[in-house]
């Protein structure tokens, strides 16, 4: 079937939006219909993302030519992120069929979930600055509601903290958009890039860029803007945590930061060094804070902060190898962190607790969870030949190649700390002796097992990406070239 990729581009946004409304309209009380519609939508989106590998294009909404109208661009970087978002979304929607059975109002969950996927797809494909802001808000508002979904004490408190900090950062981003519009007179990303290349970057543009870095660092949870993440991600239901930690902070945080820094504003040494230091701070702070946690999901949340630090360090190096490392780690982390959060959710589903000291010996009781969490832990800790090892190796090599021996040493040390806390989770939750209270647990329901196995296979498949060469992993080198090409061509 040969479909022109141009027609697919708006469907990435229109299909989940339409399905979300259909779920609200038709399946309000028929939860099974809602689940089926969600899974079909995400399967369709995943297939569309796989089809768009290797293609690119610009779609003019409404047929209006470029400076007047709103564009949506698809290039290799967008394809990479779309694959990550939609495949992880498919796995999470399969998982949430069984996990959400104990909640009421399940159809609202699926509706909000599809809205969040709409927002993320819209941010990834946006070619216009204000369109990016609107889809960012759509995804963010859906995620605020999803974090508070269970309406228990901690979920409400975490969601309140998240929504206040999220609104603050959105106001900062809108101020940046206002300043950029005032100076360049256009909102189209390619035209902004051209104007900035002509006029140079004087002070108001630097202020706008600084505001963007602050605002998107809030969304990406870089230290010192991370305060909402350790509360929001554990308190949310497990499928929501997996989506938030796995794809949301990257699609609306790290990706937009990279896009604006490299393709629109044009990055200089000062800003690269700022990104490197932010990355280093996040890596170290997240890693050290994760070792002392007693709650399994809170540990994974701090670990997310640390891994985002790795990504931003890789992006902040600016060299092609560094960009490859950062992007590869982004995709890897999407898969293995979602897998780890789904495992934590499965543990909580079976045992009813998240505290590590009450768990133990789940290797026999929950075999699928144990096996997939072993795959996930080894990936994130960087044990060869899993995917995490390759991405961290590339980042360390890129640091050494650029001459930053201090950053490379820190990266290696934080990897060791990552291994330490992952081993702590594995030992305390899975390998130790089974306490009396946990005998005779049910196994995981089949849909949850299918979802976890899907993500584990994805992790293993990603480690084969380096087969085309360490400097040019399969899809990621194309994405990296988009970033190193500098300001947008047309």
């Amino acid at each position: 079937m040969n479909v022109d990729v141009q027609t697919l581009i708006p469907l990435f946004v229109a299909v989940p939006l339409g399905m979300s409304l259909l779920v609200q309209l038709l399946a309000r009380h028929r939860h099974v219909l809602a689940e089926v519609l969600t899974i079909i939508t995400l399967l369709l989106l995943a297939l569309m993302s796989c089809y768009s590998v290797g293609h690119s294009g610009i779609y003019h909404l409404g047929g209006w030519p470029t400076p007047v109208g709103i564009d949506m661009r698809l290039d290799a970087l967008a394809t990479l992120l779309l694959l990550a978002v939609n495949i992880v979304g498919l796995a999470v929607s399969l998982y949430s069929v069984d996990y959400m059975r104990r909640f009421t109002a399940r159809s609202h969950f699926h509706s909000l979930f599809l809205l969040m996927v709409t927002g993320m797809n819209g941010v990834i494909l946006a070619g216009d600055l204000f369109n990016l802001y609107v889809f960012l808000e759509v995804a963010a508002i859906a995620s605020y509601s999803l974090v508070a979904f269970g309406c228990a004490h901690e979920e409400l408190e975490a969601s309140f903290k998240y929504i206040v900090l999220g609104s603050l950062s959105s106001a900062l981003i809108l101020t940046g958009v206002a300043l950029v519009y005032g100076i360049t007179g256009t909102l189209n990303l390619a035209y902004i890039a051209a104007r900035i290349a002509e006029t140079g970057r004087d002070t108001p543009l630097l202020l706008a860029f600084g505001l963007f870095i602050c605002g998107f660092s809030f969304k990406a949870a870089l230290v010192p803007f991370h305060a909402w993440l350790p509360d929001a991600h554990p308190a949310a239901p497990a499928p929501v945590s997996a989506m938030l930690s796995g794809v949301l902070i990257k699609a609306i945080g790290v990706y937009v930061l990279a896009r604006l820094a490299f393709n629109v504003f044009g990055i200089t040494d000062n800003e690269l060094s700022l990104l490197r230091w932010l990355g280093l701070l996040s890596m170290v702070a997240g890693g050290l804070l994760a070792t002392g946690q007693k709650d399994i999901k809170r540990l994974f949340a701090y670990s997310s902060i640390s891994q985002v630090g790795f990504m931003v360090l890789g992006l902040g190096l600016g060299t092609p190898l560094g960009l490859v490392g950062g992007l590869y780690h982004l995709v890897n982390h999407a898969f293995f962190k979602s897998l780890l959060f789904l495992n934590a959710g499965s543990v909580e589903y079976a045992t009813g607790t998240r505290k590590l000291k009450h768990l133990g010996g789940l290797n026999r009781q929950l075999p699928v969870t144990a096996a997939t969490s072993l795959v996930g832990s080894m990936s994130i800790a960087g044990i060869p030949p899993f995917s995490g090892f390759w991405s961290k190796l590339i980042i360390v090599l890129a640091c050494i190649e650029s001459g930053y021996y201090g950053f490379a040493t820190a990266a290696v040390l934080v990897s060791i700390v990552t291994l330490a806390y992952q081993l702590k989770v594995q030992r305390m939750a899975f390998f130790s002796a089974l306490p009396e209270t946990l005998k005779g647990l049910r196994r995981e329901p089949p849909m949850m097992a299918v979802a976890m196995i899907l993500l584990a296979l994805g992790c293993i498949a990603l480690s084969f990406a380096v087969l085309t060469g360490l400097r040019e992993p399969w899809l990621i080198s194309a994405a990296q070239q988009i970033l190193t090409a500098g300001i947008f061509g047309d």
Partner: protein
Amino acid sequence: MNASRKLREEGTGMGITVKTVTRWLKGPILLFGIYLVLYGHITPGGGFGGGVVIACSFILITLASGERAALSLFSKNVTSRLDSAGLLIFLALGWLGTAWAGAYFYSNFITTPEAAQFTLLSGGIMPMANIALGLKVASALFLVFTLLSAFKIVERELEDLPDPADQQQEGES
């Protein structure tokens, strides 16, 4: 209409002056909102502003006569379905741009003749988009107001609530 008149005269809502003035004004306010939506492509206004004014007329009824009077006109279920339907119509308009005219999403496939510019029946798909948006915004705002006003905060003894200090002893961190 008799049921809503009875509800309006019960002991809910505000005093008799407010109720009388509301009874006169809710029609013109609703009409003004519809005018803003329909003429949105020629004069300032459009879906958002017009939708807010339409919602305001319903909110006025809620404030003056209690929420049961407003809900008897449009129940929560109906409003919620109108909400989703409004946005679906907007999406369908966009999709028609590709399906019918073979062009892009949201392309303006209805052209207006030169003589008909600046009149009501001009502007291509924009009036329909405005109507869909007005429907969506009005029903969404009314629904938000009704649902938020359904929370009745009752003063409770604070001893009835679970003590946070107990849970923290378990090493909540």
